[in-house]
């Protein structure tokens, strides 16, 4: 489905795991559901179990957040969770083990969401290589803009990984074009000027963000930040290709464990009993 008039040079069959997952949802006449959970929260085994529940209850794409000491795009709920994980001695290789376990147990595309210094320290090539070896589909990098992403783009190309950049309500048309051109998998539309966290209403900026990305040639735009209810999911699903939920799921995991994640995911996806 193309909303642009430009000639589309891309292959008709998506090469990337994430693109295939989003297209499969589209074939069912719905937006993809993207669920976020932090790696290793509250511990490694539980975080794997919770991510598997996401997939069982209708998530098409899973984001595994990598705990980081300075998460400037995260609100209090996710900060608190990841700070706890770091405090118990979390080490980076655990992420690849978690990704591998979730990939083995589900059909979902599994991405990591990581601040860039964690990639930088390991080396973009090494990080991409280990992520690919674990079966990961790619990475979302909230503090990396395409202007600085030369090494990461080269490494993800070498390893066939998706790389998701963010576009914001404040992004100029020139920047949106750059972001769309650099992204693979989908473009992450930031719904609101702010950090992660559940909000009562979806900002009306979200629809404009999606339209701007589409007119710059994006084929798949998923919207996140502040999405926390089924009605948000339905509303965004009318104009976006995917809906991203994070904080609400982290709260459920914190308060009720993997079974609460399962219940909330089923409610949010509208999957109910069967998928």
């Amino acid at each position, binding site marked *: 489905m193309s909303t642009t008039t430009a000639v589309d040079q891309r292959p008709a069959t998506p090469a990337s795991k994430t693109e295939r997952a989003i297209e499969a949802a589209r074939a069912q006449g719905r937006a993809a559901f993207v669920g976020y959970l932090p790696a290793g929260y509250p511990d490694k085994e539980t975080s794997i179990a919770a991510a598997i529940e996401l997939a069982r209850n209708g998530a098409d794409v899973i984001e595994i957040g990598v705990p980081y000491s300075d998460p400037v795009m995260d609100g209090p709920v996710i900060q608190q969770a990841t700070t706890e994980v770091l405090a118990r001695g979390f080490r980076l290789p655990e992420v690849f083990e978690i990704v591998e376990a979730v990939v083995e147990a589900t059909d979902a595309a599994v991405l990591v969401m990581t601040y860039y210094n*964690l990639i930088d320290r390991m080396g973009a090539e090494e990080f991409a290589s280990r992520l690919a070896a674990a079966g990961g589909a790619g990475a979302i990098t909230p503090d990396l803009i395409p202007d600085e992403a030369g090494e990461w783009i080269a490494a993800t190309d070498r390893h066939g990984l998706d790389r998701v950049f963010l576009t914001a309500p404040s992004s100029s048309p020139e920047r949106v074009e750059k972001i769309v051109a650099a992204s693979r998998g989908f473009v992450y539309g930031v719904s609101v000027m*702010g950090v992660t966290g559940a909000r009562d209403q979806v900002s009306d900026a979200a629809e404009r963000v999606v339209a701007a990305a589409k007119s710059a040639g994006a084929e798949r735009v998923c919207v996140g930040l502040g999405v926390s209810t089924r009605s948000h999911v339905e509303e965004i699903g009318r104009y976006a290709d995917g809906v991203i939920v994070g904080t609400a799921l982290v709260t459920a995991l914190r308060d009720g464990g993997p079974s609460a994640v399962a219940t909330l995911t089923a409610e949010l996806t509208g999957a109910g009993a069967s998928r």
Partner: protein
Amino acid sequence: MSAPAEETQKYRDHEGPYFGNFGGRWMPESLVAALDEVERTFREAKADPAFIAEFQRLSRDYTGRPSLLTEVTRFAAEAGPARMFLKREDLNHTGSHKINNVLGQALLAQRMGKTRLIAETGAGQHGVATATAAALMGMECVVYMGSADTKRQALNVARMRLLGAEVVPVDHGAQTLKDAINEALRDWVASVENTHYLLGTVAGPHPFPEMVRWFHQIIGEEAREQILSMEGRLPDAVAACVGGGSNAMGLFHGFLDDPEVALYGFEAGGDGVETGRHASAITLGRSGVLHGARSFLMQDEDGQTVDSHSISAGLDYPSVGPEHAYLAETGRATYEPVTDAECMASFEMLCRTEGIIPAIESAHALAGAARLSRSWGEAGEGKIIIINLSGRGDKDVETAAEWFRLLPGQKNDPVAETDTAENGADGPSPAPETGVQG
């Protein structure tokens, strides 16, 4: 660029976003438009005589510029063979160099139509300066401060509140400067429409390193003119403390293209770099990205930021401005750590020999300069070092009183449990092994 005839680019002419391998914009996309707006406004303002005139008027009539250059003969005699001059940024209104940058950026914020200023602060000097500018210009002001710092700099918290600012203690992470910056960035992402983030040092995403340096260049320009008129020659070395590095960048800039002038930056060595409890990012020499810039960064094997440690809240930052990283890598400037114990010995020595109470931050530069003077031996006779006295020590009297056990009920014992610290009055302690030098 005004010097096309030069075969190589001068250090002074470097603009962002990159300084060699360092700098850039490692930032969420949401903030890029705001950074573009700041950069555009800065470039326009620099070229606008009315803006320059207003900045100069405030610097003169409000800050009290030019600041003095004071020769300190008694301190220098005790330190070593060289002569020493202090650039007296401590005499500026609000008590430190920070006001230079704050007035400049506050004028830019007005030019952009912003009505609210936010800032991070460590020691509180930048927060106080920002609260001051906000009061002067009738703007709303919120200052983020690590809750550990609100405790050790309680007087500055009260000062900011007196000036009408809201002070928000930050309880995350190490509860120090880096966490205050995280929180200010989170605020800014949600408030860019009406808010300017008045970053207080030469770190952060482009254009902050270049812009903050520009507002502090006056320090080095004045110092250069003053020493030429007083002594008829350039100094042999200039020295400054380096946390983020704004006072050092301001002083260095006046001498960057005078190869005969050695540039020395002194980082907070805390308990000693070998203990891991320090804030010497350049000495450690690991490249990484934090708060929008690629620079040297204290980090573990996974890339998690390591908490820094220093007796000085203002230097307690795990990274450093990218231009310093560049000057270190090219060898133009030399960076060395100064331990808490060395710093406090020089703090006491300046109080006792010159009647000047320095900020603990600035005392790192004093200690480093004293070490440099000694290292010259007899060859140091007649050499001149200019030291940036970036701030005054009123805010640090309580910390110093505890260190030297000067409060009623304390025994007059050396407080430091490390074996390097004799009682400060006994003179400088030996220099520790230094790591990487430019």
